[in-house]
């Protein structure tokens, strides 16, 4: 199953059979059919290398970090901090002080909204988000706006599911303090021009918060090149365990911000009169962290570096083109989100069939997709659909699997229409 992929003018081959062999779960059957896992935007599967790293951590090194002086604690701390360094390199952050472990994207965004927001927002200030945000990049801003009297503004999109950059520019003003948007839309697959948007936001003196949850598994991220102020993502969408994620933030901003939570690890000294907070990144990591999760994330980074994100992007792009062409030939199917710059997501509705019924029937053919509003209710309202069927790709998916999705949709028509 080596599939040829043309990247620019250089033809490379991506050995999809080899990577599939790394993911034990891909060998299982569902409803007596081989699993076709097309729900990667919700959560990705884990390679053996990640599973084994977590297993080894618990078998050999488990202890609390930054505390004991005994060997296991030293080893656990070293493993945890090594993972931070791997992530730093992975996103090209300047230093490990800028890489904060969180539970995931949601917690990372909440951290910025609560900590930066509380310190810097006041009545009349504005926070700009977009129409295509995940609830986790809407609700934390609504909450902080409510608390501070700041006003939430929303940048509109067009029918293809692309941001209207003219409107974005018009919405920016000297009142704008924070601009938060996703790198890639989970519901549409739209890739936003992050670098350009960051530049526009900086021109009015706003800080930028990029939700990178859907970007990190698909393309190389360079936070310094993007020049964003904050970048949030989840481990579980990039082949690492659940419960671990990252907030990248520029040091000078993180230093100005008050802690998000209080507790152990985030302090230097505590007395009842005065507590001195710890240095970065510990200041934002109160309590015992998800150590094994961090170790798993480090292993996922190693794995992705080995497979190569450029090869992944090129391969996935060819899958996207193939799938787009195949799906658009399915009678009654309407693609939701058709951005010129798009990746890894097919979101669609079918005439006469509710997404939930489609999801159940596809599951019977072994095909796992997500149905519903994908935590983007405002976006579903924009497209006037109750929800969509979303098939989302990872580099271990194949053309044959897309064929199985298309065959499954024929079964849907047979069953329902």
């Amino acid at each position, binding site marked *: 199953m080596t599939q040829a992929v043309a990247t620019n003018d250089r033809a490379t081959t991506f050995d999809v059979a080899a990577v599939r062999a790394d993911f034990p779960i891909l060998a299982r059957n569902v*409803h*007596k059919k081989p699993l076709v896992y097309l729900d990667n935007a919700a959560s990705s599967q884990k390679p053996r290398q990640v599973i084994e790293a977590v297993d080894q951590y618990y078998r050999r090194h488990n202890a609390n970090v930054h505390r004991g002086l005994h060997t296991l604690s030293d080893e656990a701390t070293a493993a945890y901090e090594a993972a931070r360094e791997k992530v730093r390199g992975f996103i090209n952050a300047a230093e490990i002080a800028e890489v904060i472990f969180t539970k995931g994207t949601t917690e990372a965004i909440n951290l910025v909204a609560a900590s930066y927001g509380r310190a810097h927002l006041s009545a009349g200030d504005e926070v700009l988000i977009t129409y295509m945000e995940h609830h986790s990049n809407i609700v934390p801003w609504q909450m902080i706006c409510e608390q501070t009297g700041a006003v939430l503004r929303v940048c509109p999109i067009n029918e293809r599911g692309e941001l209207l950059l003219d409107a974005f520019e018009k919405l920016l003003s000297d009142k704008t303090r924070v601009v938060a948007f996703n790198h890639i839309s989970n519901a549409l697959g739209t890739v936003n021009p992050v670098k350009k948007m960051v530049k526009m936001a900086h021109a009015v003196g706003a800080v930028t918060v990029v939700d990178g949850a859907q970007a990190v598994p698909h393309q190389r991220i360079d936070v310094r090149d993007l020049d964003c102020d904050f970048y949030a993502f989840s481990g579980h969408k990039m082949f690492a365990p659940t419960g671990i994620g990252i907030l990248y933030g520029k040091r000078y901003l993180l230093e100005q911000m008050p802690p998000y939570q209080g507790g152990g690890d985030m302090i230097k000294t505590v007395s009842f009169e005065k507590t001195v907070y710890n240095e970065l990144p510990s200041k934002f990591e109160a309590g015992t962290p998800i150590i094994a999760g961090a170790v798993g994330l480090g292993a996922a980074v190693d794995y992705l570096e080995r497979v190569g994100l450029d090869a992944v992007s090129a391969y996935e792009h060819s899958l996207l083109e193939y799938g787009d062409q195949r799906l658009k030939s399915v009678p009654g199917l309407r693609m939701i989100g058709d951005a010129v710059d798009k990746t890894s997501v097919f979101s669609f509705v079918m005439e006469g069939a*509710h997404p939930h*019924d489609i999801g*159940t029937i596809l599951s019977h053919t072994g095909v796992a997709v997500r*149905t519903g*509003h994908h935590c983007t209710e405002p976006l579903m309202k924009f497209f006037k659909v*109750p*929800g969509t069927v979303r098939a989302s790709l990872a580099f271990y998916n194949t053309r044959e699997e897309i064929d199985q999705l298309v065959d499954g949709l024929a079964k849907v028509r047979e069953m*329902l229409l």
Partner: protein
Amino acid sequence: MNAAAPDLQDLYRRTIKGQAALFSQRRPPAIVTHRCEGSNPNCGDHLALALHLEDVAIAALGFEGESCLICRASAVMMADTLAGATVAQAHEFSRRLDAFLHDGQPLPGPLATTRCLEGVRAYPSRLSCALLPWQTLTRCIQPDPTYATTHLEAKP
């Protein structure tokens, strides 16, 4: 490998499809005394129930909204079963259908048509679709007279 797995055929029985097709004919009645909305946020089912209650009797009921086939079929059967029933009967039937779908408890005679929904028992995530119309209704006819609308978040 053309035939669907038997349980899937069971879920999408012809009778269910037939009932669901009637959904667009069970519109809100001319007189509406109670309105209630129910939604199933995980799959996007949304049901707006309009009820004409005369004292303790359900004179008529109908729906608007977009929902899946299972939910639509269940809504139609509920409207047809409960026309003329009392509020107490509506609560009782709702409870009995829930027990039938969850645990296979026997169905009372007036609920016989809903037997075709039993295929959902094998699909825990679909139970909430079948029960959504009934849960929305029982919310709507709770004893509290000031109760007008609710947003019911059915958990799968």
